[in-house]
């Protein structure tokens, strides 16, 4: 019987010991959570007109503060909260990435000068689409400011998710991260029915996947008598013979996590949600959820299930291969750019999985690099999409992008850069990332998986480059969208992501050094 059970089961003989918590090590989480609570109070007590500036100050201030603490924490390597939270190199690296991307996402969500009606969000999400109430709210220039607490709660959840060292904390974090995102997905100002449908689907399927996760966690608890990742790992190495309960537990846990990273066959929500959600939210969640979910997946696999590598590897091989191929192939026939990028993100998840399956420190490092590179490129991509518009809002149909290179050469060039990076062309961050995961996979002997990966990336290059061709080698039609000049918010986010895409492609060494120093997960 494990110590935890003993303390609960015994008739309160053992005295309660106070948990030791290193508050500074989890300060980034506390800062964001505190800011989120304050942000809710602002919604309650500050008058309608004054909320936006106050919320912006809270959001930007708290993220920057959390980032500063994260940087100050570098080199930390400890487990706190009675084994619940692990603050180690990979955690801090992902915290940093999540906070920076979160900040860029917040900037995109703050943009107000692109849409003549206001920002990207419905003035009152509860008003019926097309109703008179809705028109009234729009006319009076109401702004939805609840998005800011949602953003902060989601980020808090992600920070906990990548740091959680036991399955229960991980589950709570999963919910804290997901619920605000479900709501954010349903708040688009335009095409509201599509957006609400997306939110509902995301919620239903997300809840479904959470159930899988929880069921898997229960199975593993049943096997080992603990929810701690380390304790599960120890029990696994102690009782090697016992079979199916562990296998079922691992499998269900994987289903929950693979849903979040959008791996085939748990990917089908992705296109609908990416298309329906307000574009700044799509960019934010495409980038951050990928980091958070892969962070948790990596920790579970490397810390808890490392000893069972031979059991879960074959399954992940097949899933990685399927994810790369289905994502790449289906993306080819998409006509909506957001849907296309959704399938692209599925394919990219497959490429990252190739690094994950390597199950080596090199695999971990390559997956981390890929995640950071992918996150920057992705948020930049969606930033461009918010700017390409016609009379009815964002022009997401690909035919409206024809000849954009002639109308707006700079924006088209930046978008081409992102496409080339996603396709993995040298001198962009995407190339270094792909090279890293493939090299790691070859090192671990998964050569055939790399061959599948190379084939998939060739297929993927086709649809990425097709957008460039469309922008530059077609003539503008009367339907061609035009690019709206954004305010400083979007400009900063876009510039930062473009600079990082090039910087990580030409001089990847500094980030590789940081990742090398970050080392592996603490046990």
């Amino acid at each position, binding site marked *: 019987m494990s110590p935890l059970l003993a303390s609960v089961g015994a008739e309160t003989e053992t005295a309660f010991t106070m948990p030791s918590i290193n508050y500074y090590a989890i300060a980034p989480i506390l800062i964001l959570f505190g800011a989120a609570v304050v942000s809710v109070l602002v919604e309650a007590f500050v008058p309608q007109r004054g909320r936006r500036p106050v919320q912006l100050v809270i959001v930007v201030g708290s993220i920057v503060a959390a980032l500063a603490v994260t940087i100050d924490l570098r080199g930390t390597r400890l487990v706190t909260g009675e084994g619940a939270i692990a603050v180690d190199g990979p955690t801090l690296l992902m915290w940093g990435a999540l906070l920076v991307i979160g900040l860029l996402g917040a900037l995109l969500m703050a943009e107000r000068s692109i849409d003549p009606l206001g920002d990207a969000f419905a003035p009152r999400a509860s008003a019926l689409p097309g109703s008179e109430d809705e028109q009234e709210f729009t006319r009076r220039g109401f702004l939805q400011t609840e998005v800011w607490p949602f953003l902060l709660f989601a980020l808090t959840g992600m920070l906990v998710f990548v740091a959680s060292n036991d399955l229960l904390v991980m589950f709570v974090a999963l919910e804290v991260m997901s619920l605000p995102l479900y709501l954010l997905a349903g708040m688009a100002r335009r095409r509201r029915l599509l957006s609400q*449908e997306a939110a*509902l*689907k995301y919620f*239903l*399927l997300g809840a*479904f*996947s959470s159930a*899988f996760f929880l069921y898997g966690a229960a199975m593993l608890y049943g096997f080992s008598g603990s929810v701690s990742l380390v304790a599960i790992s120890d029990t696994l190495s102690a009782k090697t013979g016992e*079979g199916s309960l*562990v*296998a*079922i537990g*691992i*499998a*269900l846990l994987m*289903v929950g996590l693979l*849903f979040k990273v959008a791996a*085939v*066959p*748990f990917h*089908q*929500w992705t296109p609908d949600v990416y298309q329906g959600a307000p574009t700044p939210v799509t960019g934010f969640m495409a980038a951050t959820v990928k980091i958070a979910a892969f962070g948790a997946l990596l920790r579970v696999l490397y810390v808890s299930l490392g000893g069972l590598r031979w*059991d*879960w590897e*074959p*399954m992940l091989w*097949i899933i990685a291969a399927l994810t790369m191929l*289905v994502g790449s*192939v*289906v993306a*080819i*026939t998409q006509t909506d750019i957001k849907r296309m990028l959704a399938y692209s993100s599925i394919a990219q998840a497959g490429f990252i999985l190739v690094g994950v399956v390597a199950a080596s420190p*090199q695999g971990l*490092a*390559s997956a981390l690099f890929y995640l950071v590179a992918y996150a920057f490129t992705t948020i930049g991509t969606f930033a461009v999409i918010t700017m390409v518009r016609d009379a009815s809002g964002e022009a997401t149909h690909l035919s409206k992008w024809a000849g954009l290179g002639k109308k707006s*050469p700079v924006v088209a060039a930046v978008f081409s850069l992102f496409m080339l990076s996603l396709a993995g*062309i*040298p*001198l962009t961050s995407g190339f*270094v990332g792909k090279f*890293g995961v*493939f*090299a*790691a996979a070859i*090192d671990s002997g998964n*050569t055939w998986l*790399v*061959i599948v990966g*190379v*084939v998939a990336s*060739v297929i993927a290059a*086709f649809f990425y*480059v097709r957008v460039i*061709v469309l922008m*530059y*080698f*077609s003539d503008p039609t009367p339907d061609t969208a035009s690019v709206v000049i954004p305010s400083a918010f979007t400009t900063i986010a876009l510039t930062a992501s473009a600079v990082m895409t090039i910087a990580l492609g030409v001089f*990847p*060494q500094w980030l*590789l050094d940081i990742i090398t120093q970050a080392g592996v997960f603490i046990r």
Partner: protein
Amino acid sequence: MTELMPAEGVFSLIWLLIALPLAGAAVLLVGGRRTNAWGPLLGVLTVSASAVLGIVMLLQMMQNSPEQRTFDQTLFSWVFVGGFQADMAFQLDQLSMVFVLLITIVGALIHVYSLGYMSHDRDKRKFFGYLNLFVAAMLILVLANNYLLLYVGWEGVGLASYLLIGFWQHKPSAAAAAKKAFVINRIGDVGMSLAIMLMFVTFGTVSFQGVFGVADQASEGTLNAIGLLLLLAACGKSAQFPLQAWLLDAMEGPTPVSALIHAATMVTAGVYLIARSNAIFDVATVAATTVVVVGVVTVFIGAIIGSAKDDIKKSLAGSTMSQIGYMIAAAGLGPIGYVFAIFHLLTHGVFKAGLFLGAGSVMHGMNDNVDMRRYGALRKVMIVTYVTFAAGWLSIMGIPPFSGFFSKDEIIHAAFEQSVLTGVLLIIGAGVTGFYMTRMFIMTFLGKARWEDDVHPHESPKVMTVPLVLLAIGSLFLGMALLYWGNIETWLEPVVGYEAGESPISTTASIALSLLAVGLGVLVAYLMYQRRAVPIEAPHGSWLTRAARNELYGNEVNDVLVVQPTYYTSRWLVWFDNKGVDGFVNGSAAFVGGLSGRMRRYQTGFARSYALSMVGGAVLVVLALVLVRAS
């Protein structure tokens, strides 16, 4: 054994060779319309400066003893992960030296020519920007000291080529041609990236020094695999069978582009790759033999296409394919062939650039018409173009003392040393070359005028004819100069190796045979096109002519083998995603019948089928893990 010299003195400026055109490209492409006035001139200057720098380096290099002519310059560590290291580092040796000179000097001449050719184009600074970008990428390709950096240059020239083929993007055919070139090149690139990975796995390094030092320790099977993958890459870039189809469409680009990229430099990158990797091909015999076969097959494909096309540029493109076939075949011969492959590459680079620029000059005077059936009798009105084109014509056929004679006959002679069959085939190829080049020459410059009504041919301006004259002089003397004065075999020997073989027939005999074949080709062409009038409408022709006009159905083959399967797989998957999964749900719903009838109305569209596929996936994942664990 060659030793690695640190890059000191003038060689510390190796990076500048690349940086100059790269900076030019950056200024022109970022500067936009503001640079329209002085941009083209800047483009010419950067490349010319690189050319001058290259010549200075050559003179300096000749001071050193042959073993001390390899210079290595490491700028910084580019990628360094775990055991994998690739530096931003350049290597200048005898082989890259000749390439640097070819690229910068021919490049500079073509830049000058473009000043005239593109003078009326609205976007000419963009054109010069792309050209500069190409020169920079090509220099990276030949100066890299490891395969990864070479790959960067490899992709860079591909990009520049793509941009330039599609330069006149308002023509749908140009846009389509650009896309086609890009897609087919990607197939070759798969070979390249797999080859690099395989090298890393086998040798633990991707630098030239590292790989070649231990190449003979790997198993022959591995080396053959690497060799064949490299050959696949070379086939894509150099338009060799079976990836040749894009080169003909690439002629949609402006003519200076065809001359620089699709005749003189980029398409010869495949030859460079094989010659550079000689340490691998020396051991990988199966791969080397495949190289020869691919080369010889392409010699004929190109020549046959060149014989049937009425479009002067496409005919020249077929000829380029065929000539590169000679080089690839020579490179496949091993140490007896590498130096001659490079030798022919150099002479071909010069005379083919001259021929293309000549064709451009003709088109310039003929309102951009490319149909040779509407040419004829141009020798009177375009005297400079006529004479310089004649120099290229004699050179490519291998008439002494023009350059092509020396290089091509060395290849044919070397081929006999390997097998009589290869030699005979290459001699027949030379005969066909004589036929199609004479056909082109007669249809364009001799015979009767068949011009369209509103065409008034005139000689091109000085800025275009001066490069023509310089290239014609090169076509005449370069072969002799390199062979007798430059001692090309001994110059390249330290890098690619050279050994004279035993030939079953004497040098005189092989020369006599090939001249006889060429003479026959010329005679046939003379009888068909000079003695008889050339009809304006193309005659129906035999099945071979028609097949050749259709580029020997290369497009159809690619379509069936690659395009259709990819397209239909994609279509099928979409159909399955939309219909298959839902269909299954609907099907099972029919069994449950009326019970679900009421509930179904309240379900949101597709969420249930997503959930079902999640359950299905979960079941499979569970089963997989349980089974693996049980076994």
